[in-house]
């Protein structure tokens, strides 16, 4: 097992810098999720760790060794890709054996068989072992590709959006299985995704990437409760955090003509962007603010309301029993202790 450390990594493709001075540590045995949009540099980071790309600047450590100049083969990491990358024309067994066969490993037949059978059992693909990989479903293929990673007992698992090509139900099932696999193996996982639900539900830690820079690293609840800036705030949560332009004046927030309480008073009056999660907006008669109901999305347990407060569109999640109608004017407030304030220019969280 091993920790992964990236020190000041810069990677350029032609004129564009995919990674800018990126530093990152994944502790031994940690499930670390890199969250970011397309082009944020998630996959590049992963490929730098795997050794498929050489960084232009910076160093890569796996365990105690500086592996910057090592090839992918020497680093002994396992990589699971979105496209499965199964070896064609081989059976499932052939694919699982593939990483154990190379001469450098010098592994005997019994050991190979034992490891393949164990991996197949873990992933519940024993009945597929003699099938050609062309005849598998997407979920089965991804299991095989994960199996190919675990037969090797690698120090580090790297996963590049392994679940995003699967349908929703399967994705949820494999999410749980991967999490369990991580607990059983106790290995270090570096998992890349653009799906915030995946990141929140799987990661011990989440790193939010934006255009080649790491914006914030923290546990899922840290990322959710205390985002460093508005970008992170909007990256997690469905619907995302409401951002409302207003003024902070002593112990109250002024949103247009409405005045709402806040729990973090300011000494002087200043322009701020207030951030409040949809579940922290309360619909209540006699509440200080007013908005028109634009849309109602009934999700069974909760209802998601889209509210128009002047020109600002807000989202609120309310219990399903709440009775509201479209175009109705409702009164709402917020939970003052859950309101964040951001710098309207830089987007920085003012409390940090």
């Amino acid at each position, binding site marked *: 097992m091993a920790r992964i450390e990236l020190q000041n990594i810069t990677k350029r493709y032609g004129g564009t810098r995919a990674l800018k001075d990126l530093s990152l540590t994944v502790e031994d045995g940690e499930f670390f999720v890199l969250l970011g949009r397309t082009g944020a540099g998630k996959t590049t980071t992963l490929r730098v760790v795997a050794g498929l790309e050489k960084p232009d600047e910076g160093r890569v450590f796996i365990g105690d060794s500086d592996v910057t100049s090592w090839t992918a*083969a020497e680093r002994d990491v396992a990589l699971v890709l979105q496209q499965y990358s199964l070896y064609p024309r081989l059976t499932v067994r052939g694919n699982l054996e593939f*990483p154990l066969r190379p001469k450098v490993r010098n592994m005997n037949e019994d050991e190979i068989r034992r490891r393949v059978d164990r991996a197949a059992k873990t992933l519940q693909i024993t009945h597929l072992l003699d099938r050609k990989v062309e005849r598998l479903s997407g979920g089965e293929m991804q299991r095989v590709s994960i199996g*190919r990673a675990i037969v090797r007992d690698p120090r580090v698992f790297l996963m590049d959006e392994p679940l995003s090509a699967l349908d929703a139900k399967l994705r949820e099932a494999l999410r749980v299985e991967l999490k369990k696999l991580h607990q059983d193996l106790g290995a270090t996982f570096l998992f890349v995704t653009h799906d915030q639900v995946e990141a929140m539900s799987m990661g011990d830690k989440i790193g939010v990437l934006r255009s080649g820079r790491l914006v914030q690293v923290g546990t899922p609840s840290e990322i959710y409760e205390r985002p460093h800036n508005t970008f992170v705030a909007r990256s997690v949560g469905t619907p995302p955090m409401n951002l409302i332009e207003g003024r902070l004046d002593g112990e109250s927030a002024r949103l247009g003509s409405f005045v709402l309480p806040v729990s973090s008073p300011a000494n002087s009056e200043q322009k701020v962007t207030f951030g409040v999660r949809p579940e922290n907006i309360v619909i209540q008669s006699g509440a200080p603010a007013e908005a028109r109901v634009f849309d109602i999305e009934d999700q069974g347990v909760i209802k998601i309301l889209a509210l128009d407060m002047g020109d600002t569109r807000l989202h609120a999640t309310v219990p399903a029993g709440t009775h509201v109608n479209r175009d109705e004017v409702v009164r709402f407030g917020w939970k003052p202790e859950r309101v964040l304030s951001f710098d309207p220019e830089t987007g920085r969280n003012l409390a940090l």
Partner: protein
Amino acid sequence: MTDVMTRLEPGSRAASRGFSDLTIRNLFIIPTIAFLIIFNVFPLLYSLWTSFTDFRASTTAPANWVGLANYRELLNDPFIWRNFTITAKYVLISVTGQVVVGFGLAMLLNRQIPFKGLITTLLLLPMMLSMAVVGLFWKLLYDPSFGIINYFLGLGKFEWLADPQVALYAVALVDIWMWSPFVMLLSLAGLSAVPKHLYEAAEIDRAGPFYTFFRITLPLVAPILMIAIIFRTMEAFKTFDHAYILSSQPTTELIAIRLYKMAFLEWQTGLSSAFAYIVLIMVVAITNIYVKYLNKAKAR
């Protein structure tokens, strides 16, 4: 589906002129059918008929039905079998050479190198030339007294084309030179279709270059390589132009050359038709074997 595809736009010119869908379809198909019948189907059937007669195109004498006599004569002729042996040897050397050279070139070109496009184009040049022209200038290259090949290899007055032992190899070498680019082109298409992430996965899995080649590259390129082999075998089987120009040795008398002599020098039209049919059956048989392998390679 077909209904939708063959229906004309109601307001179009063709519709307003009163062409029905069927007429339009026929306008496209009939010329092709007519061409095929006149130039392919009729000669095929006519030569099948002449193969059962003693017809000679050089005389006005009427053709007499001789039944299977032509076929019997040919199959009992030891010289004909010698032609077949020579051809088989030629096909084997030439196609093997083309696959080795062509696939090797494709492997070399299938990476990031400077001037890749230019190099590829230059390598493709031989196959764009006329076969007869190729035969003529290789005859000069092979020339024992002033040929550039002997000059560079320092072989003195080595007889490439007059030596009965060497001549067939010399002819096959020209074919390899000319048609390796064809195999290269198809292999290159096959190689570039192998997903890059498979190689990356193999690298991560610590597979060596040979292991990767035999487990990933070759199985994936095999079907398209097989198509190249089918094409080249059929073509090599009927090689005539450059072989005829290069050498007149009995050891280089391929079936196509024998056939040509039989038909147009000896004017044994009926006999040569029968010969052509025997060759046709053989080519079809060999191709079928290949196609079976191809389907197997695809199914795997």
